[in-house]
């Protein structure tokens, strides 16, 4: 039964859909880089700054991208390659998609990989994933404008407040995320702690000696050292 499902899941039609989705993601990224590039001079970004930002984005995203890729393998066995590509390429993570797959399968009265896992069960999973993942897309499509307007209102009243809110929202989010990770195991604790310390040292050093490129690599380097430390101390 499962082979039949996988044959359809890996059929040309789904590859075409996956390609279109990937195309939309690439198109959006390129169009936003274009409009950002046009506005860059007005916010005091030189073309050198633009290059720096692009390089930094690239270097910093390599680690996370491979981290994401390693987890997605577990999904390929469940969903086939094209749907995995489509789900991971847009909003969604291996964890939520696996959850969606389990919920979808049980809604049809079966379990993943069971003998009676049918095309209909698979279809239920795809409905659950595709419509369930749409929640974020719909909310951001409809309400980002509203969020932008509230920001403008706050800025009109007090332009300095937004900078403080922005900084503390970042600190708050990552303060929670790192706490959540660090209590998992000693390896996680040391990975997070060392990455934090290495980052602080790199930033202080880069500023003292004025090495610009070091800041571009700061996230990549501290992430790597944190990971290796976690591995050896666990």
């Amino acid at each position, binding site marked *: 039964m499962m082979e039949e499902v996988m044959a359809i899941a890996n059929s040309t039609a789904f590859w075409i859909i996956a390609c279109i989705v990937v195309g939309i993601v690439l198109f959006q990224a390129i169009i936003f880089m274009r409009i950002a590039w046009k506005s860059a001079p007005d916010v005091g970004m030189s073309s050198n700054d633009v290059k720096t930002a692009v390089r930094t*984005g690239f270097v910093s995203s390599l680690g996370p991208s491979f981290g994401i890729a390693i987890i997605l393998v577990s999904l390929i066995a469940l969903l086939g390659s094209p*749907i995995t590509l489509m789900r991971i390429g847009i909003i969604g993570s291996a964890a939520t998609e696996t959850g969606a797959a389990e919920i979808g399968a049980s809604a049809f009265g079966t379990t993943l990989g069971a003998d009676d896992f049918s095309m209909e069960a698979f279809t239920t999973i795809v409905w659950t994933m595709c419509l369930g993942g749409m929640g974020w897309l719909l909310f951001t499509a409809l309400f980002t404008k509203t969020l932008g307007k509230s920001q403008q209102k706050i800025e009109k009243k007090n332009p300095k407040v937004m900078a403080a809110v922005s900084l503390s929202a970042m600190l708050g989010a990552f303060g929670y995320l790192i706490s959540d990770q660090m209590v998992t195991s000693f390896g996680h604790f040391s990975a997070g702690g060392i990455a934090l310390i290495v980052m602080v040292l790199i930033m202080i050093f880069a500023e003292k000696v004025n090495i610009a490129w070091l800041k571009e690599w700061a996230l990549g380097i501290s992430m790597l050292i944190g990971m290796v430390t976690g591995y050896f101390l666990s």
Partner: protein
Amino acid sequence: MSVIPEKVINERVERTVRPTTVSSDSIGVFHQKAHFWGRTTLFLLIAMCFVPPLYLSFVLDAHPGWSAIITGLIGYASFVGIFWVLEPITYYPTLGVAGTYLAFLTGNIANMCLPCSAAAQKAVDAETGSRKAEIAGVFGIAVASITNILVIVTIILSGTYILSLIPPAVESAFNFILPAIFGAVLGQFAYKKPLYGIIAIIVGMAVLFSPIVGFIKIALTVGIVIAIVLFMEKQKEKKVVG
């Protein structure tokens, strides 16, 4: 895109007006374009999301019945539904308008988009929350989005062959990538304001261990840290004035 006559006019106006306007107007133009393209791409993607299930149900005739689909959706919504609303609001202050459209289309916000946005901002010495930071962040996220999708496509097309080349030691080191990313990002922001960084971790730990429902914990931490920082900044201002 400059083939569209409207756009051309827009750009011309923007260019001729540019020298006399303050920079806040040009960021307004940027936001307008960001809303337009952000919404267009998101709605396109939303439409695409309907294609696979409709195709399976009605072209391949594998329709499982609406009751199974609705049961599945309700089950899923009760598990993540609250994040549809909480996440965009929680991350908006750091992502900004364009960053929100980019990050929520490509996903992996906390583990990729925000770190890359922050790194790009720091690399060009932009002050958090400034216009320059917003634009630099857009470059960071957009490039990350492209890199990420290319890495995923390569790995899937190679039939995970590339992943099988990775030695097991390296693969287990990747178990620690999340704490390493989060620690590094926190360090990037805390090194100038160590006190705020310490407050963020203390609040994070306190919220983590308090007996409240899991899904509001991150938003609650963000809210508390914003309140504390704003309060402390106000006290500072008073001291400067007094």
